[in-house]
């Protein structure tokens, strides 16, 4: 992890700035990948997927069968 220069407390306003433009797309793609994974593990009604993830779904309180 690259270390960043120590920010002053007063620079907190800066930290609230929007993520930089070139970061936007990777953030969105990562979020979308996360959603796809969650759908497969938590929601998909394909029977083998459901059965494999069954205990995990019950534990996470996802609506299941």
């Amino acid at each position, binding site marked *: 992890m690259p270390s960043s220069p120590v920010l002053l407390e007063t620079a907190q306003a800066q930290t609230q700035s929007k993520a930089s433009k*070139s970061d936007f797309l990777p953030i969105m793609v990562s979020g979308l990948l996360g959603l796809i994974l969650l759908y497969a593990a938590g929601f998909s009604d394909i029977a083998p997927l459901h059965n494999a993830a069954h205990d995990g779904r019950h534990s996470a309180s996802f609506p299941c069968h």
Partner: protein
Amino acid sequence: MFNLTTFRELVTAALWTGLLAGLLLTAIQQIQVIPALLKAEVYEQNATVVPDAGTSHEHSAWQPENGWERTFFTTVANISLGVGFALLMGAIMHLRTRPDNWRIGLLWGLAGYLTFFVAPSLGLPPEVPGTEAANLEDRQTWWLITVLDTGFGLWLLAFAKTRTNQFFGAVLLAAPHLIGAPQPEVPSSAAPAELAHSFITATVFANAVFWLALGGLMARFYKK
């Protein structure tokens, strides 16, 4: 432009976070969650011997054998959920700012716990197999609306600048519960109420640990 470094760092952080949190969750589930599920399945199977019993599992399709195979696939599912939640959390964190330290992550973890577990569970409590429930699609829809509502509501409560927007956040938090979750016409359960309650307690605890680990680890691995 696509910042590949950001993408690589986010995905790497999420993979490690999901792996570790998923393994931790699997370990915790063995204490109370899995034993309760297995007990409930016995009740469910006994109940489905009766010809007119309504609920049953999909037994025709492949399913993992009880024992190590089942534990293995549950672990895979837990890690998948962990990585999925971590990717989503990392992305949402970054919309604000990359975290300073793991302690900030605990707050994000708490928000995730409230959004993805506590809020939907208020209307649709975690249930053991063999519990009569409303139509699956209706429950999934209510679950999804509740999660979106709660997530957005918490965001507004935490970050909105004006009182009006914060108030709107509070309204969003309450809305799905005022509407109410879809309930079965005749609630019934093959498992005794005591077992259903101990399952709820077990999941409340297991998911709290899971989410705090997710938040803390993700902030640690994805800090500035």
